[in-house]
């Protein structure tokens, strides 16, 4: 398969992943903030095609899971009533009753999605049952829905932060490389300072002097800002290198000879060269930033509850009993594997396209 095809394949795969995450509201059966305190840590719901009487149904169905006292099985399937899986469900008013019951528990805490919106969902079951495709967490929230919405947050955070870092790096690197002199010196010292710390330490240090208790939305944007501002150093150095060599080209000198201004030279000759480098960097930086978000959120310094992110979804595993007994809580982490595989494949394909031996 040629290099071109590999790039397209990787892009297609990543596109599909991102699309599925963007459609989270549609694909997820529940709002991620909806809790069901009576069903904590339920294992993934099993889909059945054959009922108790041995008949095959094309439409899969589920049983409700009653909490049991047996330590080996946290809940037992109640086979008396089968709930078929329905597709293209509208969030019914019956579903809202569950929200109201939870209101009393949650006090003033209101989820945004559940009460107001009535929109379409790909699948669902009748209100008396719960379909937890990937199990539920300690507060009875559907992990599948949370994974989709969390994936949205994590992937978006990674892409936005990488965009910010690359944008800053492009700007500062171009200025440093093109103008040289004290501007270059200043920016390069800055780059060295930022690279003098291991990246996670740097993120911690920067996070440390920002407010700890923030609303979920604020924490999301703050995280992106922190990661973006911290990550400009390496792209800036690369861009500076490219700009330095482009600046010395004879065709730039010739253009100056026609009376071209600095802005023209940057726009027409220098920056297009830098763009190629920036694009290749994007394939490497986005997964790094997604990873950083996951690490920070896991440690409580990233996206705050109740907004789900793949990082804070994994945070429940910090408790020993969760780690030991509830294997489905690992799945948000496992979901990251295809994402990274896709991005690394893309980065390799882009590097090969640029003629570099991929590492």
């Amino acid at each position, binding site marked *: 398969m040629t290099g071109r095809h590999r790039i397209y394949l990787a892009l297609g795969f990543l596109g599909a992943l991102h699309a599925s995450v963007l459609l989270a509201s549609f694909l997820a059966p529940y709002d991620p903030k909806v809790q069901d305190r009576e069903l904590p840590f339920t294992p993934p719901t099993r889909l059945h095609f054959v009922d108790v009487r041995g008949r095959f149904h094309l439409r899969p169905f589920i049983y409700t899971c009653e909490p049991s006292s047996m330590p080996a099985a946290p809940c037992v399937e109640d086979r008396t009533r089968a709930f078929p899986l329905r597709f293209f469900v509208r969030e019914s008013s019956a579903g809202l009753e569950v929200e109201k019951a939870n209101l009393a528990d949650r006090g003033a805490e209101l989820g945004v999605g559940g009460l107001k919106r009535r929109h379409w969902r790909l699948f669902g079951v009748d209100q008396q049952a719960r379909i937890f495709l990937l199990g539920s967490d300690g507060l009875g929230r559907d992990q599948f829905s949370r994974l989709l919405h969390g994936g949205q947050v994590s992937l978006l955070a990674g892409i936005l932060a990488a965009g910010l870092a690359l944008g800053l790096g492009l700007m500062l690197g171009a200025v440093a490389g093109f103008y040289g002199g004290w501007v270059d010196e200043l920016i390069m010292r800055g780059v060295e300072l930022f690279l003098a710390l291991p990246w996670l330490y740097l993120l911690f240090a920067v996070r440390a002097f920002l407010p700890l208790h923030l609303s979920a939305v604020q924490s999301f944007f703050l995280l992106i800002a922190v990661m973006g501002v911290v990550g400009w150093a390496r792209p800036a150095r690369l861009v500076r290198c490219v700009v330095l060599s482009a600046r010395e*080209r*004879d*065709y730039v*000198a*010739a*253009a*100056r*000879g*026609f*009376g*071209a201004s600095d802005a*023209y030279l940057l726009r027409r*000759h220098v920056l*297009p060269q830098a763009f190629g480098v920036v694009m290749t960097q994007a394939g490497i930086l986005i997964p790094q930033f997604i990873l950083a978000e996951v690490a920070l959120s896991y440690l409580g310094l990233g996206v705050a509850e109740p907004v789900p992110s793949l990082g804070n979804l994994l945070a429940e595993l910090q408790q020993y009993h969760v780690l030991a007994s509830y294997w489905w809580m690992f799945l948000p982490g496992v979901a990251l594997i295809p994402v990274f595989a896709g991005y690394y494949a893309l980065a390799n394909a882009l590097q090969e396209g640029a003629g570099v031996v991929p590492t």
Partner: protein
Amino acid sequence: MNTENVTAATLVGHGLTSLTALSVSRGEGRPYVSRSGMTTTALQVRALSKAYVQRRTLSGKTISIEALRNVELTLQVDCTLGLVGESGSGKSTLARCMSLLERPDSGEIWLDGKNLLSLKTSELRCARRRIQIIFQDPARALNPRFSAVELVAEPLEVLRWNTAEARRRRALDLMEEVGLSRQWENRLALEFSGGQRQRLAIARALALEPRILVLDEALSALDPPLQAQITKLLLDLKVLHGFSYVLISHDLRLVERAVDEVAVMHQGTIVERDKVREVFAAPRHTATQALLESC
């Protein structure tokens, strides 16, 4: 049309049509201001000096090389000058200073009654268009990702001359003048051969109708038959457009065929300057003799 075998007849034929096109375009507005006065001197260089810092010693002293030492040079209108000398004699530095790519440490460069080195940036930008340089390696002098028409039209684009369509048409006319087919308008620079790229560079340099063209070893990278063709092209274009040119080269045979007068440089100064036949037949300076012997 095979560009490498352009005959004089076809070129003159094209030249005539271009000339008419030019005279028409002159009505539309030419890329630069009209000539001021009919002087016989195109360019005058006075007391030009430049030194390069080689390295700094530990005690802070700088060791520098004097590339140009008080160079005096006058270029007449409609003149062609060859600049020869051994490597390190300063000919390339002089070429770059004359075309304002580098600033000399001291001296003056007079063009159209103004000292170019004393001009402000805005005036300088205007003056730069009257002297254009063509580099030795066209592969480096042309942005490989530009198309032929983009390359040739670039000077006009920088000036924001006229409309994009007019610029394109003028670029295509220039391409034809240098013997490149109009059909190659969208071909990328890296798809052309060395000789064709040098033609593109010449076309580009002519876009602003310069008075003086500086060719810094521009023919050295081409093989002899191509050199002959480009030399002929230059001479024809000189007749058409009316510019003077300075050809820097280490190849004396090439210089002999391409220019009227020659100046010999040695260790940063001009040691001899006369008609080319005179200099080569009866060299007066030891440096010239050494050059001729090594040929």
